[in-house]
């Protein structure tokens, strides 16, 4: 019984982290049809920005928890949106209209560039920003102990999910974006400035990736390569749920998160394997993911 609870709580925590990481990826794909391989690098960028800003803050400026959390958010959003703006305006803009697969390779090129840009800025020594994690202590849930910070990550994840839902379903920009998702050419004919919407979408998607990194920074040691590891798991989540669907990303994150928790508590040696096994199994039965839509063949 204890294991079941542990699996459920671990699975939920991991799933909410997965959703945070995957949300930006699926938003960008949904609107722009670009699978952004550099998403992991945006995550790493957010983590580096948050870690170095926290390092500066705790090194003599102050030690208020809420200010630290505000710093994480502001730094991550700022650097993510800025990087997104540069990537979209500087590179992707030149490539619109090419194959989806070619765009995949373009974003792979941006991943390679970003990885080294981060090495040039932050070097190769690890950054630590454990203070917020330590400051939030641990809580007892029944007989299990959970860290307060990780419970907060669950909250952040739910908040991000709700905000995205509200943005897409209840605001004017969201309505315009949905029209682009539905039919790009018709919305363009109706006077929608698709290019500007693409820029906005990419900046928001990039900022979401950076937030995920910023929030994770206090839990991990930030070293070169964290982004490259994250991206594959994020892909697995969005492909399982169905590319471009927010609900899909949430369900995909829950399935993958629980599967991984089951594996860690029962068969730890299969941990890396299980994420991809879940994805492959879903794709065998639903080739476009759980919430994906099949596209009609064109002749």
């Amino acid at each position, binding site marked *: 019984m204890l294991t079941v609870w542990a699996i459920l709580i671990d699975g939920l925590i991991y799933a909410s982290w997965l959703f945070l990481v995957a949300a930006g990826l699926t938003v960008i794909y949904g609107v722009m049809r670009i*699978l952004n391989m550099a998403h992991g690098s945006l995550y790493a960028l957010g983590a580096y920005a948050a870690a170095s800003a926290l390092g500066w803050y705790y090194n003599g400026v102050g030690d208020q928890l809420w200010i630290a959390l505000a710093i994480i958010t502001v730094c991550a959003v700022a650097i993510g949106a800025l990087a997104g703006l540069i990537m979209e305006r500087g*590179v992707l803009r*030149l*490539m619109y209209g*090419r*194959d*989806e*697969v*070619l765009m*995949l*390779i*373009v974003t*792979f*090129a*941006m*991943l*390679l*560039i970003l*990885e*080294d*840009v981060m*090495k*040039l800025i932050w070097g*190769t020594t690890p950054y630590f920003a454990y203070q917020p994690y330590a400051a939030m202590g641990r809580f007892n849930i029944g007989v299990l102990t959970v860290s307060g910070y990780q419970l907060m990550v669950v909250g952040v994840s739910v908040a991000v999910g709700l905000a995205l839902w509200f943005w897409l379903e209840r605001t004017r920009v969201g309505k315009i974006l949905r029209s682009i998702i539905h039919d790009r050419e018709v919305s363009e004919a109706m006077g929608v400035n698709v290019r500007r919407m693409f820029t906005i979408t990419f900046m928001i998607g990039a900022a979401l990736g950076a937030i995920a990194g910023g929030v994770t920074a206090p839990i991990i040691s930030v070293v070169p390569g964290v982004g*490259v590891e994250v991206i*594959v798991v994020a*892909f*697995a989540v969005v*492909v399982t749920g169905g*590319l471009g669907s927010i609900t899909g990303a949430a369900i995909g994150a829950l399935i993958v998160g629980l599967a991984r928790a089951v594996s860690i508590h029962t068969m730890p*040696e*299969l*941990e*890396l*394997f299980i994420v*991809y*096994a879940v*994805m*492959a199994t879903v*794709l*065998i039965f639903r*080739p*476009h993911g759980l919430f994906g839509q099949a596209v009609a*063949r*064109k*002749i």
Partner: protein
Amino acid sequence: MGLQKSEIMLVLAAAAITLLSFVIPDWLAFTTTLAIASALVVLGVVLLMRAGLVSFGQGLYYCIGGYAVGMGGRFLGINDALLLIAMGVVVTVALAMLLGLLLTRYREIFFAMLTLAFSMILYGILVKSQNLGSTDGFGVSDWTLLWFDPDGGKGSKTVLWLATAVGLVVALFLNRYFGSAIGLACEAIRENEVRVEYMGMSRRQILYINYVIAAAIGSIGGSLTSLAAGHVDPTMAYWTISGEFVFIALLGGTGHVAASFIAAMIFIMVRTYAVELFPNSWQMILGIVLLLIILFLPKGIWSLFTRRRRVGS
């Protein structure tokens, strides 16, 4: 059918490499071997690319080929290089025939991401395998080539001769294959697969054959790499390695089999120097070059040759 012009050129190039191997230093022989080995994996990527599929998981077969050589020598006591390579090919083809059934149902990014996922599954398994050295991998035991024992300072030369011979055979085969009915149908599939079906050809069958061939030569490339390097580790299956193969494939273009060999040689040579000179910005250079190729040379460096020829005549 007589010998084509490009076939004669390929044989001459192989002969030239063999002759030059007697005068070049060991490090250059080693680099050339690595380039030929990578070019074989890249040819697999090119083979799929001609049919419109991008594989981000060719590292799966590259790794299996490498580990077949390592494990064959270590656990089965097989020491002959050709036998070890053949063993890798057998395992690879068996796996590719199974995975191919699933993968040929997918296109575009789904194909790319699924191939990536399968190579990462192998990576995950190898990292957790303590008796295979986990992330450190393990050394390849000494090997022989038929009756020849390559020890005594001649190891790097022997493996270069082997790579050249194998590379030549694969290049000649693929050169004919690209021009065959199936090879030509690949380009038609890339343009419009439904029309290909209307003409009475099975696109899945063609893609399946391509996938299995690509896997087999990827495995040969991995085996040659591990014979030359004398070491295997799980990063061979990591997805960024597969990304490098996609990079070389785009650099060379799909115009001709020789393009992959030239591109691989350029890649390996530049990497050798760039990693020493700019250890922290080598990937950045790679990324920028990749973007420039996509923008200005969408058919790869091979288009430079053909373009000049067309202007000349």
